[in-house]
């Protein structure tokens, strides 16, 4: 069984690699878009303009309160009826995960910016920095240490949550695995493999986050 199991994984490697590519593709794209969106969100909330704050809070509460799977169904099944265009499952997953991830990332960025003493902002303004320079040169670099560990945690959650894409029909690594099981009935092997795959993708990130947290935020 052990050798035949390894053999099966070996034979299926090209297929699995394709699925892994799709799963990691969703995760990585979502991580990039979430980060960009989250930084914009964090800075906008930090400006303290009331109406922007209000709009962003509604966005935050909606994406925090309503489960990601519900959003996936809404976008995947709903967009075709509501707006008339359907998007492929892959991009639907990227879109929903990015929107959700940006709200989570954004709260991290906002929290880190809020932890910087107000004097830093004033000192920056006093030498004539414009807002963009103030954030780019003074505030965000200081916030970076504080926000990196929790940001990495959001990224691992994005990788884990990307697994839900299979439920809207994306042929990701899970779907490929299920197809292999249909042919071979090796469910323990394949689900074991999937378990290990996700663990190997997430654990190094969690560990890095913990190390950085200890090194940076306890000194």
């Amino acid at each position, binding site marked *: 069984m052990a050798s035949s199991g390894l053999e099966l994984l070996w034979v299926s490697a090209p297929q699995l690699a394709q699925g892994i590519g799709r799963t990691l593709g969703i995760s990585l794209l979502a991580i990039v878009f979430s980060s960009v969106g989250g930084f914009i969100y964090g800075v906008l909330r930090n400006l303290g303009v009331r109406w922007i704050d209000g709009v962003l809070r509604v966005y935050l509460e909606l994406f925090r309160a309503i489960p990601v799977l519900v959003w996936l169904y809404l976008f995947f099944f709903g967009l075709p009826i509501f707006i008339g265009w359907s998007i492929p499952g892959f991009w639907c997953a990227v879109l929903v995960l990015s929107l959700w991830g940006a709200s989570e990332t954004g709260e991290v960025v906002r929290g880190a910016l809020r932890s910087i*003493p107000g004097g830093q902002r004033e000192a920056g303004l*006093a*030498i*004539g920095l414009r807002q963009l320079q103030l954030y780019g040169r003074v505030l965000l670099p200081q916030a970076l240490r504080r926000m990196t560990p929790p940001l990495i945690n959001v990224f691992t959650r994005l990788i884990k949550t990307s697994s839900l894409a299979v439920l809207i029909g994306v042929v990701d690594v899970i779907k490929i695995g299920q197809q292999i099981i249909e042919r071979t009935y090796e469910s323990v092997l394949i689900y074991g493999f999937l378990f290990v795959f996700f663990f190997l993708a997430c654990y190094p990130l969690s560990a890095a986050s913990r190390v950085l947290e200890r090194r940076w935020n306890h000194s």
Partner: protein
Amino acid sequence: MSALIELTRFSKNFGSVPVLQDVDLSVREGEVVVILGPSGCGKSTLLRCLNGLELGHAGQYRFAGQELPATTDWRQVRQQIGMVFQSYHLFPHMTVLENILLGPLSVQKRKRVDAQQQAESLLTRVGLLDKRDAYPRELSGGQQQRIAIVRALCMNPKVMLFDEVTAALDPEMVKEVLEVILDLARSGMTLLIVTHEMAFARAVADRILFMDGGRIAEQSAPESFFSAPQTARAQQFLEKFSYVENMPKRKTS
């Protein structure tokens, strides 16, 4: 001589609380004005209004002959007005030199060679050239404050504002900072100084401005202010400060 800073009936509220009321102030080029007053009298707010960190609600503000409405591009103004804060506010993620050069390079777009040369000569002037590559956390409070002064000076401002710059320092570091300011005063720089160091105020000022309840209560030359204050509030204020100096001895020996 024309006035560098000119406020007319300048007022400012925090919510419904007035913090500055009908302030009239005119500062000549090269003049050293020390602002005294009890805490909460609006003296820090006055300084912060001068470079747009706070905006006034009424009245007129003219800087270098130009009227500045609230919608002014304050960035332009701030480059000509250096400000030093009570708790230094150096950027902790930058070295001393990076702190000093951030404004000249990224705001004023000056050549690095020129700016760095000026930064180094200023550092030499305050005796901290050897700390050029240190990070703020490696410096004492007094050193950090001297760097903050250099950071402001390196923008070649027309005027410097000092907001209680020695209030957060240990007593033994006060001197090194005050000497730098005194040196600036001697070189003819226009200075507005908020401080609680009475002896220093007396030594450095061309004019003392006493504020109370958001208004300028009294303006006079330092000698006459300290020897014969005109208002009762100023008298009370000075008595509190002389209390410690003239404290009666407990034991007569």
